């Protein structure tokens, strides 16, 4: 069951990666990166459930707290601020 | 003083969530770290302070969360329908939305909520105007825009942040 759900998430990441390689402008690629980070956050929690180890949830917590900082920096650069 | 206490309580709750343990050493460390951070940021963290925790406000916040969750689920069904449909039924455009809210915190919460609800994405806030990318523009009339996009949120937010 968990393996099937993980493969659904893997398929989602592959779609986002295709957009990342194809996307005409830099913004499209950043959107793809943002989405990959969010999907990975969910996927790591799911993997933690599969291995049944509590410490694994912490990695996901780091992604949830810090994952948007990189995207925010890139967005501020594009806008000319920073 | 009341702002100081408010910031401290919020930070300490976040610490409890991060550690998820009630051991004495963890609690003391958390309290000390929260105090240090609070003494630096309490002036900019909030404009309201402890009076934010009045029972009426808490009730309104819970009501807001329920309205928001329903809108979020509706938004996702809407997005799913549009994405799966082979004809791609969209008619996008950017519209101007005039908010009547005054508080900065309320504006930010309104913008975030609008981003997560059906077919709308906040692009920018300039003074009292929110510029919103709407995936299916049905009308350019400001009253219709106000009613369709944010009226249900704004009513409750005005009660919370008055």
């Amino acid at each position, binding site marked *: 069951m968990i393996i099937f759900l993980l493969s659904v998430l893997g398929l989602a990441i592959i779609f986002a990666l295709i957009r990342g390689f194809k996307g005409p402008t830099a913004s499209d690629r950043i959107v793809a990166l*943002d*989405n990959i980070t969010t999907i990975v*956050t969910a996927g790591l929690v799911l993997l933690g459930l599969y291995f049944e180890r509590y410490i694994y949830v912490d990695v996901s917590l780091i992604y949830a707290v810090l994952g948007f900082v990189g995207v925010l920096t890139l*967005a501020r650069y594009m806008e000319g601020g920073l | 003083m009341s702002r100081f206490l408010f910031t401290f309580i919020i930070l300490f709750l976040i610490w409890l969530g991060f550690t998820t343990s009630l051991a004495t050493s963890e609690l003391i460390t958390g309290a000390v770290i929260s105090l240090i951070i609070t003494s630096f940021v309490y002036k900019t963290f909030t404009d309201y302070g402890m009076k934010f925790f009045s029972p009426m406000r808490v009730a309104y916040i819970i009501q807001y969360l329920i309205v928001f969750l329903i809108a979020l689920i509706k938004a996702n069904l809407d997005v799913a329908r*549009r994405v799966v449909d082979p004809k791609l039924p969209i*008619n*996008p455009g950017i519209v101007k939305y005039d908010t009547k809210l005054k508080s900065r915190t309320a504006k930010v919460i309104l913008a975030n909520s609008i*981003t997560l609800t059906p077919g709308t994405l906040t692009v920018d806030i300039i003074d009292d105007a929110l510029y919103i990318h709407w995936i299916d523009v049905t009308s350019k009339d400001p009253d219709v825009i106000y009613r369709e996009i944010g009226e249900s949120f704004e009513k409750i937010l005005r009660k919370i942040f008055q």
Partner: protein
Amino acid sequence: MILETIGYIIISIGAIFLFLGAFGIFRMPDIYSRMQAGTKATTLGAMGVVFGVGLVQPEWFWKTFIIVLFIAISNPISSHALARGSYKIGIKPFTKKEGLDDLDGVYEAEEEK
């Protein structure tokens, strides 16, 4: 046992929404519409998956709750910043009719002030 079943159902719904979000990014015609699909569907999807795991393993509940909270706060902020940045470097939204872009020329007027 009942809690576990409900948890797995919520996880499955979340996974489906995550997939639809990524598919939307792949399919939509311009950056703003992509962001719409991306932000909304991935936010609810990730929230659903993480919350469902919290229901399946009740002793993890508080930590998963914190993760859900942070996803709900941080995701719209990053997409908002990205939309604003894209508009400022001059990416026009895709429209089917003329005159649907109210933000056109607003930044230039701000500059002159």
